[in-house]
């Protein structure tokens, strides 16, 4: 998993990321323990690709993305980002002042299109806000740019004087995407961008994201709990559980040859929209799939066992004690 240092196709490289949150108790709010929200997460994102982080609620996928954007400061680890100007910077440790120009290059698409748009601002204000904050262009140029962005995401530029309440969930999510693209970012972090949308609208937004990627060469870090959505949009998938990245592989590889017991459990639990593929309930009921210390060897994670990510070929990595055992699990 050690990167080739000079590989400039890697836009983002996260190494051994760790984020601990203190647990405070009592009158003095003393720290009595720590939650390992993210522990030992390592992955990279190549330019122009979509890497998906999947996992169940509380697995650390959102915290990981927030660390990448430095919305929270990681406890340990490196987040190497290749800037447009050339040099690779470590987002994890960069001082605040130097972060600001970097933020223009990373933008975010939020989950809830209802709460992520200010109801008292017009679409023009909302989409132009990143431009205003970064003092880009004159007012006339900004209006021009907003019109162009709205057209890009499939909305009519005439709508820019209207307020968000006039739009449906899918249209609002398009506005959120236009805002994220306003500064032509190199990396777009999308945290559950379609999970609040209706099924018939979800497909429209996913197709839009794919079109924009092809058109503008965007790079996505896509966070989702929905494996079917991820299967549609991602090139590579990283599965997280209990703060750890347990498996990372190209999409086909992950779906056809899942190596980690947690990935298998996750895939087995997705009900198919086809009555001919029923779930295996008896297996699902006995499973304690999301408890790392119950995973069988060589995957067990507890006090005595701290497996790391092992390469098992074809860009496929799995968290296991290194040894012969992993390769047979992969086959």
């Amino acid at each position: 998993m050690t990167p080739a240092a000079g590989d400039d196709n890697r836009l983002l490289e996260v190494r051994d990321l760790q984020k601990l949150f203190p647990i405070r108790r009592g009158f003095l709010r003393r720290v009595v323990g720590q939650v390992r929200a993210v522990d030992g997460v390592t992955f990279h994102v190549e330019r122009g690709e979509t890497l998906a982080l999947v996992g169940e609620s509380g697995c650390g996928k959102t915290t990981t993305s927030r660390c990448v954007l430095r919305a929270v400061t990681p406890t340990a680890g490196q987040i190497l980002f290749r800037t447009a100007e050339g040099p690779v910077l470590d987002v994890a440790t960069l001082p605040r002042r130097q972060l600001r120009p970097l933020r223009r290059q990373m933008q975010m698409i939020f989950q809830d299109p209802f709460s992520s748009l200010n109801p008292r601002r017009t679409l023009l204000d909302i989409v132009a806000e990143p431009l205003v904050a970064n003092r880009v262009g004159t007012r006339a140029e900004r209006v021009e740019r907003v019109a162009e962005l709205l057209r890009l995401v499939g909305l009519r530029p005439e709508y820019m004087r209207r307020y968000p309440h006039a739009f449906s969930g899918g249209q609002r999510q398009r506005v959120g995407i236009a805002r994220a693209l306003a500064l032509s970012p190199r990396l777009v972090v999308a945290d559950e961008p379609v999970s609040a949308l209706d099924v018939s609208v979800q497909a429209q937004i996913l197709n839009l994201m794919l079109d924009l990627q092809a058109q503008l060469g965007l790079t996505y870090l896509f966070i989702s709990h929905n494996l079917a959505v991820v299967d549609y949009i991602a090139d590579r998938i990283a599965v997280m559980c209990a703060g750890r990245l347990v498996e990372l592989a190209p999409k086909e590889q992950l779906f056809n040859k899942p190596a980690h017991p947690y990935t298998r459990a996750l895939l087995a639990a997705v009900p198919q929209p086809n009555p001919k593929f029923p779930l295996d309930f008896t297996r699902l009921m006995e499973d304690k799939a999301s408890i790392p210390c119950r995973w069988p060897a060589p995957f067990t994670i507890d006090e005595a066992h701290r497996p790391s990510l092992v390469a098992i070929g074809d860009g496929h990595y799995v968290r296991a004690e290194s040894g012969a055992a992993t390769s047979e699990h992969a086959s």
Partner: protein
Amino acid sequence: MGSSVAGPDAKAPPILEVRDLRTYFFQDEGTVKAVDGAGLSVYAGKTLGIVGESGCGKSVTARSILRIVERPGRVVSGEILLREDGRETDLARLDAESREMRQVRGGDIALIFQEPMTSFSPVHTVGSQMIETIRLHQALDKRAAREKAIEMFRLVGIPRPERRVDEYAFQLSGGLRQRAMIALALSCAPRILIADEPTTALDVTTQAQILSLLARLQQGEGMAIILITHNLGVVAEMCDQVAVMYLGRVVEQGPVDAIFHAPRHPYTRALLRSIPSIHAPVRTRLPTIAGSIPHPYNRPPGCPFHPRCPDFMPGRCDRAEPALLTVAPGQQAACFLYGDARP
């Protein structure tokens, strides 16, 4: 509208039959026709799935059956027939506050809500809420009701139930809370369980466990389930019959295999095509449904789906509303593609 499907067992009449139900919300800005002529049939021991997107009226239908529609909403017309041993009660005619209706709620028909967090009182233990419900419907003293609550917790697979009953809802995880909700709903042995998006707030592995639990309980008790969801995977997994709703109407209904493998209504077809699946061949572009669900104040005239429909026939679909027509054995669709239903 509103005629019943020929059920899986045509001899036994449905234990619950909804005919031409209309529930409107009278607001200052206008009237929202949340349910506008829906018909459903529920059979003992079977699961009916109600599928649809937001605003299609699936939750309001469920609330209408239990007569817990909040103001300014009101059941305007239609019949909600609950049958037991040859007796037939029209719930639509009962006073929502009446003693009879209160006996139906929780007694004959129980409801599981989507949000297990907000459906429990935060200031009472889950046990005390269950004991209250049990004593409301059954003549048991406090101790016996508590025993019953613990037994129900054990039945739904909550570990160490004798300790969990004394905990508050916030002390339970999402999955446990939903189990507690199911235990509460089942505590009075209802004949019909309405589950309104019971797994939407849960993780997939937890969802699978809850679905499995429901299936097992149904087998044991012979209970009918109305499963309301937008997740077609869950429908395929659980249901015998499916009703697809769009803007307050049932646009198609039939056996689960027919709905998934031979859908007739253009909306059902489009909906099925537009969902990503992990068993899809390779990345082919997802077909989408153009446009979005109309705002309830601007209901399109004619067939409610016509502005988004790929098979739109000008002059026909935008003029009149199609009625449900039998298109295959046990399967009905409301679409002019299958002829004109006007007598």
